[in-house]
């Protein structure tokens, strides 16, 4: 299961309690997979939501369930209880590929060997969609942080430079 930008669970909220949006490439802040809300006057308005009814395809652990899109949402957890939970995972994302490459360049400069095992394709980052989203976001900011610390590094950034 890949990292989906539709299943994020992070929002931004302004100090006044209004929620706002920053989304997509070219905005003030690069898209990082989170979802945002925007203020209209003082009343927050939802402009992008991760909400959708739970569907059978959410049950990715069991192939027989995965191919049963007719299963009503409320029955899906019940059916899941009758299956064996085998867990699900994600694939290494582009932000973390870029971060790992940047750390390799830092290592080459400093003659160190940084442990980046969390972010490698078999690392803990990709054990679930949630951890994958956290890692992708942390990697995107991590490259920026590395470049701030070592301005001479020539690191390409990920998909959202």
């Amino acid at each position, binding site marked *: 299961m890949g990292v989906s930008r539709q299943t994020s669970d992070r929002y931004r909220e302004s100090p006044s309690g209004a929620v706002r949006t920053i989304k997509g490439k070219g905005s003030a802040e690069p898209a990082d997979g989170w979802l945002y809300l925007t203020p209209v006057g003082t009343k927050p308005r939802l402009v992008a939501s991760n909400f959708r009814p739970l569907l059978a395809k959410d049950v990715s652990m069991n192939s027989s369930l995965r191919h049963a899109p007719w299963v009503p949402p409320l029955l899906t957890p019940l059916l899941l209880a009758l299956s064996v939970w085998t867990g699900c995972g994600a694939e290494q994302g582009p932000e973390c590929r870029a971060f790992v490459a940047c*750390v390799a360049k830092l290592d080459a400069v400093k003659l160190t060997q940084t442990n980046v095992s969390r972010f490698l394709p078999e690392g803990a980052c990709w*054990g679930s969609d949630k951890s994958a989203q956290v890692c992708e976001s942390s990697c995107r900011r991590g490259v920026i942080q590395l470049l701030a610390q070592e301005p001479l590094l020539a690191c390409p950034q990920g998909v959202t430079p």
Partner: protein
Amino acid sequence: MTFRKLSRCLLFGMLTSLLLLRGDEAQAHLPNILRPGEVFQVPDPLLSFALYGTFSHADEVFEVRLQPETPLAVPIEIMVPRQDALTNHRPLFAIVGKGLPKASATELAQLPRPLPDGMGVVLGRYEREDREILFESFSRRVLYTNGVVAYVLPAGDVRMWVWSPSGTTGKFVLGFGVEEGKQDFGNLIANWGDYAY
């Protein structure tokens, strides 16, 4: 088949299937408590931790230490419960260690303590005035976060200081790592009051 037999089949079939759920093997941050004036030693920096603390006074400093054998890349963020009373509560953290950038005068002024000799510092930061919020599934909490960043920690003696620059008080959670620990329900239950509310 009578309803009673059907009920029995339903009940026991579902109970059996529930036993197959591997909930206790779910990966999560290992929770622990931070107390001001005490040093929390991270036993294994390759595991993830959620470290819970409470600022009772404005001048308190919380300290975490770890000893990575090699430089270590790890996501770190600081979180605050999303509650009305904590809207302006924005604790900050600093990563202190040898090999980190030398502190600027501005950074030195921000730090709650003088830097040990030979150590550099990286300050956590809030990216924006508005605040990212997240849902933590194991404790069912909604938290503000400063925005998770993957930092490269140097090998050897690394310290993290948490303080409240604007003098606000209240709870915070220092998140360290990815979900890499098996949930310890005994610890969770024993310290539930600290973790959950």
